[in-house]
Each structure stands twice: as structure tokens, then as C-alpha cells.
């Protein structure tokens, strides 16, 4: 019995040709690109743009106010602030370019190498990378200052090496993710050399993330470089934004406004880089980002709920349930008018393929739809009360106490950070209001009841210390711990080993009979249905196509879809029967 494996095909990278265009369509991306272009053009054509040479001194313009030829005023030595800003752009960008180039080259190369070859080489490189990352870069640059000399370019080269771990990690992780993709294997099988595989496939995939990292690292470099220059390190004869800030700082008490311009130049440039990176990231993530919850669920009229079921023996009565999730154009319905009736002490199987809406129906009854999901119409009468879209706090009081839930995948449904004992006592203390010691006593009894060989040991174990089958028993114990009237079990055996499946199913059946619970058993497995259910509802595409007594359903399925599902099961169990009626030859 294999669970429906969900083939996760790798999302094809969005059409790359459109990347630049779509970044420019994004308003922030456009603004950022324009600002960056201005800075770059200014840097390149600095001599044409600046009205003065950066070192032109005019003694009478020391700390002068803006005007009279000096657009932004004069600095502490009587030089034109505007002209120095223009030349500063050039020197600042050169430094950033050096750092980024070194960081990207060293980091990406090392990342490709470590990611592709793995093993000991990866361990060593990652250790070096971690080591570099644990050093405060500015302190190292300060310590190296005397030997590196006053040239900021060499400092930025060293800084580039210190920034390489960012690229290294990014590349290594991407390569690790990609190298086992089918197409890389295919390339290897078809005899391409390692180098060509890396160049062809992996570089394509990492291009966009590396571009983002380049923007970010360029921003960091500009800030750190300015910081060094602000501290007075570096060649003070060259106009730089950081050096200008130092000058403005020295004259802060005379002209406080002078600190504005170089700082603004740095901030605007770095902000543009960040916004550009964000625009690219947004573009890349567009595919897998959940649609924003738009529209107004409140506006969807809920039709009159009708009257409560007359028959007091009916515990749950779901009528015309419609569940939807918001998408770009409104709501996508995943459950399209489902009706179910469940009597006290009855086990109802909810059967269908994945995507048929059976789990969503179960979650809707529990009031636990995923973010954005809503009951759009219909009603769920539980014990004489319509609980569809009940306020969360009212719903919470029903959950655990009256309606309980057993999930499909036991390990991921226990909180890894807490001991099992705590996870079992917490709901009892909350829901039943009993003391901790009383809860502990009951939990130990429960653990024994669900077949744990050593309840005490399990009580003090963490989830990762027990097996999947044990974990599922723990979850069942938790679900029944507050004596619920209704148990909703979502594929409770699917994730377990075949031998364990039967045991867990036996346990569920015994508990159901003992406590006279009503159970909704969501499954795709007719074997399970035959084993434990009284009645079955078959779901397809969000609708119930057939509901019947188990025996009658197996004996005489009415709907074609049910027949098909049953046929698929029978294929596994009994040999195919030759049907001459079909007119096909035996040899076929």
C-alpha cells in the first residue's frame, strides 16, 4: 500500500529574459534603478559634472553657506561640497566594486567547489567560512591598517575576502539543492565532465540569488568603507563620502547641516541597492508566494442555516458545505457543497483521492482551515448547534473536549521541544481543568491503554526518542484524553509501517467501541474502510458522489467513480478476471 506520493517537480525558473523588465515594472525597483544609474553616471563623468576640482580651496568659503557658486556650501577647508560629493561617488563606487568582485569571486568559487564535491573539502571550507564570519570585520581592518597602508582599495580587497562567506553559503546551498536534480544526473550519465555540468546547469540557477547578494554586499561595502574613512583611515587627500563626513564632524558645531549631504549620498545609494535586491527577490518568489488575502469574505452571504436536525441521534450534520481559499481572481472552492451525516457511535469513512477535498472538509468541521481558508456557505450542525464559522474562542472550547483530531504524520505533529508527558498533560489541564498531578496519573494510564510498553519512560521522552508508531499512539491518547464525542482521524495509518498500521487500526476500533465515540475517518484506503467503518462517503473534486452502508457500497457501488476506486483496490488483491465481453483478445 503506497501513499500517494506527491511528486514535487522543481519549479522552473521564471522566464529569465523577463527578469530585468519585471524588476523595472516594480515601482520601487524602477526608482532604485534610476537612482543607481544617476550615481553611476555621476561617478563616471565626475569631471564633467562637478563645477570645481575637488581640491579647489577658497579660503573665504570655509564652512560657507550654500550659494554664490557653491551649491551646497563650502567644507571646513573652503572646498565645494557639491563637487566633492560628485568625485566622492567615483571613489566610493570603486571601493565597493573591489570588495564585491573579490567577495563574489572567492565565495562563489569556493561554494561551487564545496557544494559540488562535498565531503571533507566542504567541511574544511565551511569551517573557514564560519571562522571568517565570527570576526568583527571593522576591528580586523583596523588591526591590519598599518600593514595594508592608507590605500582604501587594499582594505576593501581584504574586506571582500571577509564578505566571501555570504556568497559561499549561498552558492553551496544552491548547489547542494540542485546537484541531485534529475537533469544534473542526466548530464552526468550522458558523459559530460564535472566542470561542464557545473558551468552549464548550476551557474544558471545561482545567477539571480547571487545578483541579490551582490547588491547587498555592495551596500555593506559602501557603509564600511565610509566608516573607515570617517575614522580617518585611508588616503585623506582623495575626496570620499566618508572623508567628507569626518570633515563635517570636525565642524559640526559650526555648520551642523554639512553632515547631511555625504550621509544622504551614502544612504540613498545603499537604499537603492537594497530596493533593487528586493525587487529581484520579489520577482523570483512570485511563483511560490501565497496570494494576498484580498476581497471581503464577510460579503459572501451565508445562506440561512436551516433548522437543527430533528433526530437527536445525529451528532454531526454537515449540509452543503463550501470551503474556499482566496486567489488572485476571488475564491477557489476546494469543497463544493458537501453534506454528511454522522450518528452517535458511528464510524464514517471519508474516502477519495488526494485533492478530493476530504481533508479540507475535516479541517472545516474542526474550524482549523489553513490561513485564508473559509467556510463560504453551508452549515455544520454539531450536537444541535451550527458551528460553521463559529468565533475562534467558542470553537476552541469545543476542540479537544468534544471534537478531537488525530493527524496523518505522527512525528511532525508532536512539538519537538517538549517532553511527551507535558504534551499530553497540557490539554487535560487546559480543557478539563484538572490538576497537573491528576493529569499525570490519567496520562500514564492512557499511555498504558494505547499500548505503550513503558509508560513512565515515554512520559519523560522527547518526540524524537520514540518511533513513528509510538508517536501515533501518543497522538491517539491525546485525542481521546478528554473523552470527545467526535474523533476526526485524518489518514491515521498512512504514514506508518504496514505491520504497525493494523495495530493502530485495532486500537482505534477498540477505543471507539469502548467510548462509543463517533469517528470520521479520512482515508484513501478501502482496506481501512472495510476494517473499521460503518458507513462511507466517497468524495471527488470537492463533492460527495456516493454515501452508503459499507457492505452495500462494497457489494453494489452505485457511482462510476466508486467502482473505479474499488476496482483499483481489487486489482491489488485478486487476479484480473478475463472478461470476454470486452471483445479484447487474450493476448492483448
Amino acid at each position, binding site marked *: 500500500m503506497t501513499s500517494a506520493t506527491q511528486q514535487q517537480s522543481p519549479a522552473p525558473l521564471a522566464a529569465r529574459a523577463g527578469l530585468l523588465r519585471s524588476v523595472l515594472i516594480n515601482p520601487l525597483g524602477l526608482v532604485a534603478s534610476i537612482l543607481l544609474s544617476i550615481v553611476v553616471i555621476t561617478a563616471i563623468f565626475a569631471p564633467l559634472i562637478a563645477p570645481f576640482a575637488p581640491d579647489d580651496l577658497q579660503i573665504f568659503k570655509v564652512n560657507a553657506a550654500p550659494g554664490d557658486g557653491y551649491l551646497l556650501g563650502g567644507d571646513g577647508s573652503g572646498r565645494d561640497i557639491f563637487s566633492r560629493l560628485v568625485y566622492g561617488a567615483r571613489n566610493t563606487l570603486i571601493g565597493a566594486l573591489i570588495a564585491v568582485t573579490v567577495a563574489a569571486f572567492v565565495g562563489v568559487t569556493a561554494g561551487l567547489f564545496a557544494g559540488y564535491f562535498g565531503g571533507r573539502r566542504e567541511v574544511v571550507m565551511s569551517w573557514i567560512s564560519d571562522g571568517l564570519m565570527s570576526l568583527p570585520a571593522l576591528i580586523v581592518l583596523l588591526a591590519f591598517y598599518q600593514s595594508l597602508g592608507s590605500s582604501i582599495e587594499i582594505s576593501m580587497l581584504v574586506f571582500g575576502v571577509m564578505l566571501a562567506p555570504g556568497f559561499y553559503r549561498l552558492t553551496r546551498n544552491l548547489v547542494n539543492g540542485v546537484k541531485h536534480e534529475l537533469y544534473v544526473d542526466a548530464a552526468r550519465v550522458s558523459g559530460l565532465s564535472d566542470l561542464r555540468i557545473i558551468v552549464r546547469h548550476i551557474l544558471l540557477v545561482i545567477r539571480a540569488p547571487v545578483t541579490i547578494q551582490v547588491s547587498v554586499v555592495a551596500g555593506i561595502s559602501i557603509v564600511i568603507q565610509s566608516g573607515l574613512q570617517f575614522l580617518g583611515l585611508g588616503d585623506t587627500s582623495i575626496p570620499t563620502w566618508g572623508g567628507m563626513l569626518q570633515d563635517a564632524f570636525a565642524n559640526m558645531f559650526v555648520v551642523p547641516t554639512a553632515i547631511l549631504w555625504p*550621509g544622504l549620498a551614502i544612504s540613498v545609494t545603499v537604499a537603492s541597492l537594497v530596493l533593487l535586491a528586493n525587487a529581484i527577490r520579489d520577482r523570483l518568489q512570485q511563483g511560490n508566494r501565497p496570494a494576498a488575502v484580498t476581497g471581503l469574505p464577510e460579503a459572501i452571504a451565508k445562506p440561512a442555516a436551516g433548522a437543527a436536525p430533528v433526530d437527536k441521534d445525529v451528532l454531526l450534520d454537515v449540509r452543503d458545505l463550501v470551503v474556499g481559499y482566496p486567489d488572485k481572481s476571488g475564491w477557489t472552492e476546494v469543497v463544493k457543497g458537501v453534506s454528511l451525516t454522522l450518528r452517535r457511535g458511528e464510524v464514517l469513512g471519508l474516502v477519495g483521492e488526494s485533492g478530493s477535498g476530504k481533508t479540507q472538509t475535516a479541517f472545516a468541521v474542526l474550524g482549523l482551515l489553513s490561513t485564508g481558508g473559509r467556510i463560504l456557505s453551508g452549515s455544520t450542525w454539531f450536537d444541535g448547534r451550527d458551528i460553521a464559522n463559529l468565533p475562534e474562542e467558542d470553537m476552541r472550547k469545543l476542540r479537544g473536549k468534544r471534537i478531537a483530531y488525530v493527524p496523518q504524520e505522527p512525528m511532525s505533529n*508532536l512539538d519537538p521541544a517538549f517532553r511527551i508527558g507535558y504534551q499530553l498533560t497540557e490539554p487535560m489541564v487546559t*480543557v478539563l481543568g484538572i490538576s497537573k498531578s491528576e493529569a499525570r496519573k490519567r496520562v500514564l494510564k492512557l499511555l498504558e491503554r494505547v499500548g505503550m510498553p513503558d509508560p513512565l519512560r515515554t512520559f519523560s521522552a522527547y518526540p524524537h526518542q520514540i518511533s513513528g508508531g509510538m508517536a501515533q499512539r501518543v497522538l491517539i491518547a491525546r485525542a481521546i484524553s478528554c473523552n470527545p464525542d467526535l474523533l476526526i482521524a485524518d489518514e491515521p495509518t498512512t504514514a506508518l509501517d504496514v505491520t504497525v498500521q493494523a495495530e493502530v487500526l485495532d486500537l482505534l476500533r477498540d477505543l471507539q467501541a469502548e467510548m462509543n465515540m463517533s469517528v470520521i475517518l479520512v482515508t484513501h484506503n478501502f482496506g481501512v474502510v472495510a476494517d473499521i467503518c460503518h458507513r462511507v462517503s466517497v468524495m471527488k473534486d470537492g463533492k460527495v458522489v456516493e454515501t452508503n452502508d459499507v457492505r452495500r457500497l462494497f457489494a453494489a457501488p452505485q457511482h462510476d467513480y466508486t467502482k473505479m476506486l474499488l476496482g483499483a483496490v481489487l486489482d491489488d488483491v485478486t487476479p484480473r478476471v478475463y472478461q470476454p465481453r470486452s471483445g479484447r483478445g487474450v493476448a492483448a
Partner: protein
Amino acid sequence: MLRYVSKRILSSLVLLVLVTTLTFAMVFAGADNVAQNILGENATDAQIAALEVKLGIDRPLYEQYGDWVVNAVQGNLGQSWTMGESVSRIVSGRLTVTLSMVTAAVITIGIISSLLGITAAVKGGWADRVIQVLSVIGFSLPNFWLGLILVVVFALNLRWFPATGYVDFSTSPVGWVAALTLPVAALVLSGIASASQQVRGAMIDALRQDYVRTLRAGGIRPSSVLFRHALRNAMPAALTVLSVQFIALLGGAAIIERVFAIPGLGSVTVQAALSGDVPVLMGVVVTMIILVVFVNIAIDLANAWVNPKVRL
């Protein structure tokens, strides 16, 4: 667990040895002009040579390194070349100043980004937008420029806080707070920007886990789901961010101390870098690495306490 910790300490020791060796080579290689720097332009060759002999930099590099290691292991980091004090005394005196500032900054970052990140993860809305805007601003505004602006606005114009200086906590707690408010404010912005994003992400991840739905299905109170279960599972990511922030703050402090004239480890590093005071620089680097290693191990231990799987 014990094995895990000893492995971490061993690996950190290797890092310490490697980095100090490399730094020593780099720093002492640049010590050529130090005697000239100290004595000034008019020094004669004979005076320079005499000073070099006195400082011991006329000897081969490996010999100097051997001496330095032998002394350093005994806790003696040597004598400053320019400040007339022992390195240990200079470093320890200034370390408390820097640490008090950085600790205040880490705590501020921790509190504000937890509040912002958790609110954004749970409610979205305004907190989400604040984080988005912060992530750009916090990254783009250099902390020293922000510091300068804060000085102009809050110290020079409004006169709410002193523009410069440092008051020891034991001298006057109020004075300490007043002196550190602006520097810490300048330091934390970028940290809050990145940490709150990380907290938000970690919290969203935690809340998406299957067990959160199952906890809710069991009737557990939302406050417990959020603060007991989800938060505890988001904690390792948040703690790791804080350790990264701590390293960034040590560097950031160097510049901020300069802006606010705070006599900390950072400003002494700048001073030593400009004057070529090699023993002080070595002392600072060693101190910083030990600090970083110590904080990282503390964070790892905290993570192991939070996440039982790591304890093995």
C-alpha cells in the same frame, strides 16, 4: 552534551590560534615605520634604531611571535608602545565600557525585534510594514551618520542628552543611561531591522508546523500555542541572529565610540591603528575573538537547552 561543548571549545581554540597568528604576521609586518611614527619627523636614524631595539622589532618575526605567545599564554599581553601602560590594563579598563554599551544594544535589539517580529508574524498589518520599511532604512543609514544626526538633533538642538562622554554606571546610573541613550540608539537600528525580519520569519515557520494545528485541535489556548510552543521552536533562529548581531555591534562600536567620544575598546583600537601600536592591536584582537567565542558557545548552550535534539 559534554562532548559537544568540548568540541566547540576545541574548534574555537584552533580559530583563536589561527587568527592571532595571521593577525600577528599582518600587524607586525606593518610595524616598520612605527619607531619613526613615535619619534616624529626629526628623529635621527640612531634614535630610531635604538627604539626598535627597545621595542624588540629589530628581531626576526618568528622570534617576536614566540615571545608574544609565551607571554600571552601567561596572561601578559605586553606593554603599549604609545600609551605608556600595559596592554592588559588598557584592554580591561576599556572592555567594560564597550561591553556595557554593546550589552545594552543587544538587549534593546532582542526586545524590540522580538515584539515587532512576533506581532508581524501573527498579525501582519502595520508591524509587517514597519519591518519592511525598517529593513531598507536600517541597512542604508550608516550607524555613525545616524549617530551624528542624533547628536545634532537631540544634543545640540533639543539638549536632551549630552553630546559626548561616558559616565560609569557605578558613578551615576542616571548619567550612564543619559550618556548611552544616543549611542545605543544609533547602534541598534540596523540590528533591529535585520533581527526583526529573522524573528518574523522564524515565527511564521514555527506557526506553519503541523503540530501547531494539532495543538489547536486539542483545545490549547492561543497564548500557549504562541508563546510556549511556537516561540520556543522559533528561539534557536532568533538566538543565532543575536550572536551575529553581537559581532556586528563590536565592530559598530568602534565608530560609534569615536562619534560620542566614549573611551571604549573601539576608540582605543582606532587610536592604536592610526599610531601603529601593535601590542594594543594584538590585545584587542585576542580579546574580541575570546568574546565572540564565549558568546557563541553561550548561544549554542542556550539552543541546546531550547531544542532537545541538539543535546545529543
